[in-house]
């Protein structure tokens, strides 16, 4: 495995920025002695970030009461939804049981968080249970605001040329029904993205590229027209990636319109209405992919933990971008999609965020300051057709942060990147959940 050995060393040379985070993260598993404590650590949400945090903490502390709160029994491997929505994987591919991933000794409360009171250090569930804490980790992910799109509801997915793959495995499977119908009939396919922050900002592009490719091989063939409706002036938030996508769109003859934010649909007549700087614009479609606006879950928005002056319509938690510690309540941390940091709403980011958060929390238990630092690592393998993808990895500063510099070129459409997405990503994700990666 000379390639694997060489990669971390090469990265340290190439990317001084990433090196600090890497070294800190690499050092963590080596600290053999768990820290003794009787602290009550409460983790809200048992998704990618919550489970990873529970497993890493269980190894680092001894005697703590670690409690997770999440009503959902099944765990979703969400990066797989893009593959389910294009018929490449079955629904079951993304599903597992939450309890399967939990370390021994942690308590799972299968109730929904109803309220968070950071002043009283108390969380209340929908069943009326009150949970006190010494440290709180908010990992509630995000909520899809379906109602923000007039005329849209999730039970319509799969009919009348309507797709929406973000809601879960059933929605993704029904999206595939709409996509396969489009691949036979052809016509105009329109792809949207919300004007809010969103998880995996590459997913709307992936879906666009995949549907184009599948339709090009289907009966639709030349009778297809593809239109990407961007919410702002860019195709992706990182300029160099946006430029690359623009070039790919040109070669694939995929059209793009800018400053188009979906606000309403008329499913029966297949008309989508977009808010634009010039007023509302109606576009008729044969296939439409909807991604609703995304916000912090309601209990977070009502808790007083959100930023007061940024993302005010979305409510992400006000944390320091490098330590993920709350700026006003030092015993509170936020990791995963709910954290109020620029970028970072991917499972790959969770993998880099959690060790940093754990370092600061464990340091606090010992009465010192943590040293690990998160620099915004975010990654989303951008599928450009069935069989090829580009590794897109970047940080807060819009720098590319390639994992395999000199071996796997970023921003290049490669088969090996597709193999990574199709084969290696899910095991990597599951190893992360267990705290092994």
């Amino acid at each position, binding site marked *: 495995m000379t390639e694997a050995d060489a990669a971390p060393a090469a990265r340290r040379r190439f990317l001084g920025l990433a090196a600090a985070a890497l070294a800190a993260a690499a050092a963590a598993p080596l600290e053999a002695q768990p820290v003794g404590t009787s602290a009550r650590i409460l983790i809200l949400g048992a998704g990618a970030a919550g489970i990873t945090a529970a497993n890493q903490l269980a190894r680092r502390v001894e005697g703590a009461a670690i409690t997770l709160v999440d009503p959902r029994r099944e765990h979703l491997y969400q990066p797989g939804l893009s593959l389910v929505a294009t018929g490449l994987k079955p629904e079951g591919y993304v599903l597992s049981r939450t309890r399967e991933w939990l370390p021994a000794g942690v308590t799972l409360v299968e109730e929904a968080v109803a309220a968070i009171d950071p002043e009283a250090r108390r969380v209340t569930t929908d069943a009326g249970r009150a949970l006190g804490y010494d440290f709180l980790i908010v990992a509630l992910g995000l909520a899809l605001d379906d109602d923000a799109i007039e005329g849209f509801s999730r039970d319509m997915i799969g009919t009348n040329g309507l797709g929406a793959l973000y809601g879960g495995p059933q929605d993704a499977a029904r999206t595939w029904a709409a996509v396969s119908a489009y691949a036979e009939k052809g016509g105009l396919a329109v792809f949207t993205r919300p004007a809010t922050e969103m998880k995996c900002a590459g997913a709307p592009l992936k879906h666009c590229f995949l549907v184009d490719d599948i339709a090009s091989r289907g009966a639709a063939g030349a009778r297809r027209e593809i239109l990407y409706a961007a919410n702002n002036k860019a195709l992706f938030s990182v300029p160099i990636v946006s430029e690359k996508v623009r070039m790919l769109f040109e070669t694939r003859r995929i059209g793009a319109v800018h400053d188009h934010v979906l606000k309403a649909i008329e499913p029966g007549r297949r008309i989508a209405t977009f808010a634009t700087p010039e007023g509302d614009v109606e576009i008729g479609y044969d296939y439409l992919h909807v991604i609703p606006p995304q916000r912090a879950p309601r209990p977070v928005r009502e808790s007083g933990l959100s930023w007061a002056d940024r993302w005010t319509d979305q409510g992400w938690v006000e944390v320091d971008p490098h330590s993920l510690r709350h700026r006003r309540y030092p015993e509170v941390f936020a990791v995963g999609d709910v954290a109020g940091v620029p970028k970072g709403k991917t499972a790959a980011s969770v993998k880099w965020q959690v060790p940093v958060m754990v370092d600061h929390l464990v340091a606090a238990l010992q009465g010192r300051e943590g040293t690990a630092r998160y620099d915004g690592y975010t990654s989303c393998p951008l599928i450009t057709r069935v069989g090829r993808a580009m590794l897109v990895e970047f940080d807060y500063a819009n720098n590319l942060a390639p994992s395999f510099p000199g071996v796997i070129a970023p921003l290049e459409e*490669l088969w090996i990147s597709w193999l990574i997405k199709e084969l290696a990503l899910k095991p990597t994700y599951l190893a992360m959940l267990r705290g092994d990666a």
Partner: protein
Amino acid sequence: MKDLTLGMVIAVWEEMFGPALFWGMAGAAAVVTLLYLYVLIRDRRVSWRKFLLAQLAMPFGAAAAVGFVWRITHSGLRDVGGPVDVIVLMGVAAAGAVGAAVLVYTAQSLVRRPAAEE
């Protein structure tokens, strides 16, 4: 991806084929390798006639391995996009070729004793 450990590489393979098929194949490969070593030690020499036939099996092994990888990953030759892809493809083909050669050589040696050959 932050680091690559043997455990993770094994997890990747388990995911690719499912644990049962993966460990079955790994077990089969280990058994064939051990048998190959066994016949080499037993016969104390390489039989060039058997080796010739084994060589003829190599292209078939290479093609089978590449075809297998393409099938399980919904991809094909047209997806090769850069030098690293060519290297990966050649690696898969080489592994298939060597595997087929070892398998054919070992099978011949087990079926026919060296005395029967000359």
